[in-house]
């Protein structure tokens, strides 16, 4: 397994290299001129040219790429075109905020998703199942801003339990993580349900019952862990998405996270920031995938660490 992990980690290096190349040329192909945006509507042509030179955007693309890579290899992510601030400064706070939000969302999505999924499976085709699945499907089809604003209306404005946004304390994270987790919760609930239904058909469940175990024990101790294996894959994938931050939730709850940073930077064609963010996301994605594979194997003693 150790070898497996090392192998996967080594694999990341060329991937990141290719990714950086891809991103670099891709975003320069996208229309929009950061210089124009930086200089403003009233800028004269001369002014624009000066800014272009200052930002180094007048050089040929491959030269820019070489410079960029040189900086990257020395651990320098560069400066934002828009604010002039070092990108690492801009990440600092946002990254931890996004992390916190991610873990909270995933946490409750897991808890509720598993709960709903389990109840649905156990009471298959009875009303708790219908209620559970309706909830799940609502979670998929409700747009995030809507859910977010409704939660704010209920829990902040009317009840005054939680702040409307910000990142001051754990309380600030409650509503956003609920909103962000809703979709994942739904996915997990649906997958848990179908996976559990499969598991409940397995022979060893009957063995458990034949031992005289209570149904609740059979479900909890025998069925659930087995059903988790496919659920983990889904959770992992979603985890990757969460780490990318969610623009909608960050917007609604005024959270300074990675998602908004990315969107704002794209809008401004803030190339260095966009590159850095995507690179970070790719890395996260790859690491999460690795983590999932490891977790997957940990959950399932049958899996061997080959291939």
């Amino acid at each position: 397994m150790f070898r497996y992990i090392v192998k996967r980690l080594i694999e990341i290096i060329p991937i990141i290299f290719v990714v950086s190349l891809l991103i670099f040329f891709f975003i320069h192909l996208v229309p929009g001129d950061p210089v124009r945006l930086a200089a403003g509507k009233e800028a004269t042509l001369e002014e624009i040219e000066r800014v272009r030179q200052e930002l180094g955007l007048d050089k040929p693309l491959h030269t820019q790429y070489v410079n960029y890579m040189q900086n990257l290899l020395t651990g320098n992510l560069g400066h934002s075109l828009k604010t002039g601030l070092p990108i690492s400064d801009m990440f600092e706070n946002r990254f931890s905020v996004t992390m916190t939000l991610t873990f909270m969302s995933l946490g409750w999505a897991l808890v509720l998703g598993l709960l709903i999924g389990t109840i649905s499976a156990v009471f298959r085709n009875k009303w708790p199942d219908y209620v559970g699945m309706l909830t799940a499907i609502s979670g998929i089809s409700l747009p995030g801003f809507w859910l977010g604003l409704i939660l704010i209306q209920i829990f902040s404005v009317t009840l005054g339990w939680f702040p409307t946004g910000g990142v001051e304390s754990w309380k600030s994270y409650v509503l956003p993580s609920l909103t962000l987790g809703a979709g994942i919760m739904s996915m997990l609930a649906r997958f848990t349900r179908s996976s559990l239904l499969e598991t409940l058909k397995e022979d060893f469940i009957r063995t458990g019952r034949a031992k005289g175990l209570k149904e609740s024990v059979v479900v909890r101790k025998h069925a659930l862990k087995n059903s988790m294996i496919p659920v983990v894959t889904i959770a992992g994938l979603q985890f990757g998405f969460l780490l990318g931050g969610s623009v909608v939730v960050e917007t609604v709850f005024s959270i300074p996270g990675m998602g908004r940073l990315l969107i704002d930077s794209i809008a401004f064609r803030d190339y260095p920031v966009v590159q850095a963010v995507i690179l970070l996301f790719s890395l996260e994605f790859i690491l999460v995938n690795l983590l999932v594979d490891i977790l997957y194997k940990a959950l399932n003693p049958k899996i061997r660490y080959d291939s």
Partner: protein
Amino acid sequence: MVMSKSLVVVDGIKKTFPIDSGLLSSKKSVKAVNHVSFDIKEGETFSLVGESGCGKSTTGRLVTRLLMPDEGKIWINGEEISKMNETKLREVRKQVQMVFQDPYASLNPRMKIRDVVAEPLLIHTKLSAQERDRIVAEMLEVVGLSSYHAEKFAHEFSGGQRQRIGIARALILKPKLIVADEPVSALDVSIQSQILNLLKDLQEEFHLTYLFISHDLSVVEHISDKIGVMYLGSLVESGPKEMIFANPRHPYTKALLSSVPIPDPRAKRERIILQGDVPSPVNPPSGCLFHTRCPFVMDICKSTPPALREAADRDHFVACHL
């Protein structure tokens, strides 16, 4: 039976599967098949017997080149196939068809039986749809089904019928060799006998050659001409059926024979109950592979692997120090 030339010649084939097990452990491998040789004459039935995991199926899959041997050579109808490329192999596969242990699993559950049986025709011939249907109908008759079964799906059949379908599919290209990997193990006794009879009849009718894989000695006795007994990837005894049954030489063969439950409550006999389980093929024992369970184990067995040598009778080979 007219003895003729060898259709299949297997010479010293080996197959190792790599596995990487456990935390931080080094690479390991399973010697699934270890230096196995035999030959099958045209029109003959050669059976491989042995416990689960001893490498029977792997041998079968090597002969059909579903797997590529690590070492050794295989000739089919005079052609060396062990290193052949896929395109040429497809030609050979016209001659070699397989029947699988689990008839349900080997039939695509989403295809109609007509399409299942016709698939080899689709792959290897350019017949028209009507032609194909006609041949399929004929073949289904041959195996004791009727053409109206063609419209159904595998799950609508009983186990015995499914196995007939598998056999029909294997026969449809009129192959020379059929590799039957435990074709009756999953079936009930009464159905099993139907299939065994069918296989025998078909062999006569189409002059087929069988490589028959089974762990049930009573079945093997019924159908084979020659038998090979495998243990942990190696052939430990082989020879004509009569000799093996009348005069088993290897202690493992003896144990195998005595383990078969006899459907007669009055039959009293000395059972050789082997101790322990089959050793893991990942860590095979040193010396004779069987020494860990052998009731007649000697010191030499623990250190030196016995070679396969001709026993007293002609054509009867055994690998044992005894």
